[in-house]
């Protein structure tokens, strides 16, 4: 049975009233290579800094070897960090950088010599002892930063996006070396990155984080093959994410066709369906064909071809195959039930709470929206807004409140956007218009699309 070395119990953290981690529960097994993966701002670095001791959780508990870490300052924790831009001390040479921690612990000089030499050999930098760290290349600085951390024989090595500053080729090489080092040292590695490929290559376990919450924990194959939600599916690898509905026992309908699947959900449940582009197969056998499509574009990607096809029902899908199909050709396609990943929908509409201003207006998200209603002014109300009942405008002045496009999901025939409003709330919007991440938009509501207004707590 694996032994837990680090454990997070209901950990939350916020900065200036803004919540960055929400109720994190997580454990790390001894000797494991675990990766915290997520987009910037997801809270992964905050988690790492908590383990290192630079931050304390607001709520919850952090355990090392079963003992609480609270109140133990970073210099007394048996953990070491490889920092994002290495943070090698520019006033010290390579040897003194590596010996820094040992000298503080008053390790005898000959022992220091021995250990420094040993780690230099491990990171293949044996002849660099006297070099000024600023004369080293990025990759060399990287190695010294790792050497400086592991020479102290930490129980856990924390790595904060250590490869982010390197170029692609170097990054690939270092990935292999890191993996090798982990094997040789046998200590626990906790690795933070936003690069999904790096995470898939290196890790024993991946923890996918978004918006301060753990989305999924699993092995690289689990996470790739069985993402639990749209975010994970979209963030890890390429995928077709589509709206679907259960139509029977292990039967799901999407792109206006019905398919057999392996997930057993309730009848008629609205779901999201993920199909990896390499899991849609071409066939010439009409008996196997589940739906037809027309090839729209075909691009060579080195090993495979990437094709976008238009289905006979008006959806766009991405397909990857080793053989190209000519643009404009009609093709027959099928999907294995095993490859259809069905997921519960995270939400069916936007639910907001606001206050009635008058019979024509409701105050929501710090803005006065024209929403006809039959409540007395001052009533607290719950407003349920379908994804397509929100209108986004180019011109900020045309909207009631402003927001920023935060996340975009293409669902075959429309976009599903996450919008962050100025007051920090999120809205989810279905639209056919093309927006880019980071675009600023004006937000308007379309009451004719069926917005439901009820008294709060009803």
């Amino acid at each position, binding site marked *: 049975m694996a032994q837990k070395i680090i454990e997070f119990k209901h950990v939350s953290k916020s900065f200036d009233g803004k919540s960055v981690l929400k109720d994190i529960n997580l454990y790390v097994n001894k000797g494991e290579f675990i990766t915290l993966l997520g987009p910037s701002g997801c809270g992964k670095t905050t988690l790492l800094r908590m383990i*290192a*001791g*630079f931050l304390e959780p607001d709520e919850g508990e952090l355990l090392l070897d079963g003992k609480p870490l609270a109140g133990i*300052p*970073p*210099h*007394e924790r048996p*953990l*070491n*960090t490889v*920092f*994002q*831009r290495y*943070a*090698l*001390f*520019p*006033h010290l040479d390579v040897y003194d950088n590596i010996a*820094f*921690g040992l000298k*503080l*612990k008053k390790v005898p000089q000959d022992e220091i010599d021995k250990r420094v030499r040993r780690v230099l050999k491990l990171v293949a930098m044996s002849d660099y002892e006297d070099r000024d760290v600023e004369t080293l290349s990025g990759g060399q600085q990287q190695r010294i930063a790792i050497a*400086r*951390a592991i020479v*102290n024989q930490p129980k856990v090595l924390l790595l904060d996006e250590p490869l982010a500053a390197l170029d692609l080729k170097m990054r690939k090489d270092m990935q292999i070396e890191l993996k090798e080092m982990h094997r040789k040292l046998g200590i626990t590695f906790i690795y933070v990155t936003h690069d999904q490929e790096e995470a898939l290559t290196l890790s024993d376990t991946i923890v996918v984080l978004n918006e301060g919450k753990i989305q999924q924990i699993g092995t690289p194959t689990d996470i790739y093959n069985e993402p639990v939600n749209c975010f994970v599916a979209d963030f890890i690898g390429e995928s077709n994410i589509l709206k679907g509905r259960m139509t029977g026992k292990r039967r799901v309908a999407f792109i206006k066709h019905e398919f057999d699947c392996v997930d057993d959900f309730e009848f008629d449940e609205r779901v999201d369906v993920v199909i990896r582009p390499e899991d849609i197969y071409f066939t010439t056998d009409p008996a196997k064909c589940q739906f037809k499509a027309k090839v729209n574009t075909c691009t060579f990607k080195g090993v495979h071809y990437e094709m976008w096809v238009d289905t006979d029902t008006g959806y766009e899908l991405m397909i990857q195959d080793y053989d190209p199909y000519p643009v404009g050709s009609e093709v027959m396609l099928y999907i294995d039930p095993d490859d259809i990943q069905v997921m519960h929908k995270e939400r069916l509409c936007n639910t907001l709470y606001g206050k009635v201003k008058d019979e024509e207006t409701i105050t929501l998200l710090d803005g006065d929206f024209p929403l006809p209603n039959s409540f007395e002014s001052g009533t607290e109300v719950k407003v349920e807004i379908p994804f397509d009942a929100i209108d986004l405008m180019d011109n900020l002045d045309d909207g009631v409140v402003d927001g920023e496009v935060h996340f975009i999901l293409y669902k075959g025939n429309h976009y599903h956007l996450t919008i962050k409003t100025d007051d920090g709330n999120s809205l989810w919007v279905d639209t056919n218009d093309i927006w880019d991440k980071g675009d600023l938009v004006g937000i308007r509501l379309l009451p004719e699309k069926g917005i439901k207004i009820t008294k709060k707590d009803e």
Partner: protein
Amino acid sequence: MSKRSSWSIPYVVFLVLFVVLPLVLVLMYAFQDGTGHFTLKNIGKFFTDKDALSTFAVSVEVALENTAICILLGYPAAWILSNKKYNRSAVTIILFIMPMWINALMRTLATAQLFTMLGISLGKGTLLFGMVYDYLPFMIYPIYNVLNKMDKSYAEAAVDLGATPWKAFWKVTVPLSMPGVMSGVLMVFMPTVSTFAISEFLTNNKIKLFGTIIQENINSSAWNYGAALAFIMLIIIGLTSLLSKDKEQAEGALI
């Protein structure tokens, strides 16, 4: 593109005329007698002139003390100002910089007057106080700049490697902030040695600094001896700025 390097020509001419030539003239006058012949008498006079030598010694002493006090008072202040935990408003920093923009003579006179009103007799003590008062912002600002721009992960890395915060401060933060301290020293030490007027106001003419004797000689038309004294000062400047490795960076820290 390279044609535009010729745009530097007017300024190069200007620099030669108004910076290089005047310094050459200082050298020339320093080694000439009144009739234009080469001589070492002016320099020799300084080394045999007891008053000049003791003034020089006092100046260096006051300058060293002033610089030391400015570092002792200014470093903690700069550190606190650069630390987000203690200070988040840029206004506090402006308040520290602002006196730099106010006429030094005015500030000095105000200080002297305040001392007089409080009944403190003017002398070495008030001179040092006034000097610290005048030059402290020049020490704080460059140190603050360096500390503020310093990557916080250096100190964190030290703590991560087992240093207590106090040790991390001495072993990492302080050595890395030395360029700021050096430019502070450059901006406090030399000006202290060379001030005139300020020391007179602050000590009621009791203590003279090196700058004052240069000024007195120039004003009494003893140009050659004045130039020789200025030359000696130039040598000290050369020595102090050698101490700060990167002058450009040091001066840059001010802006």
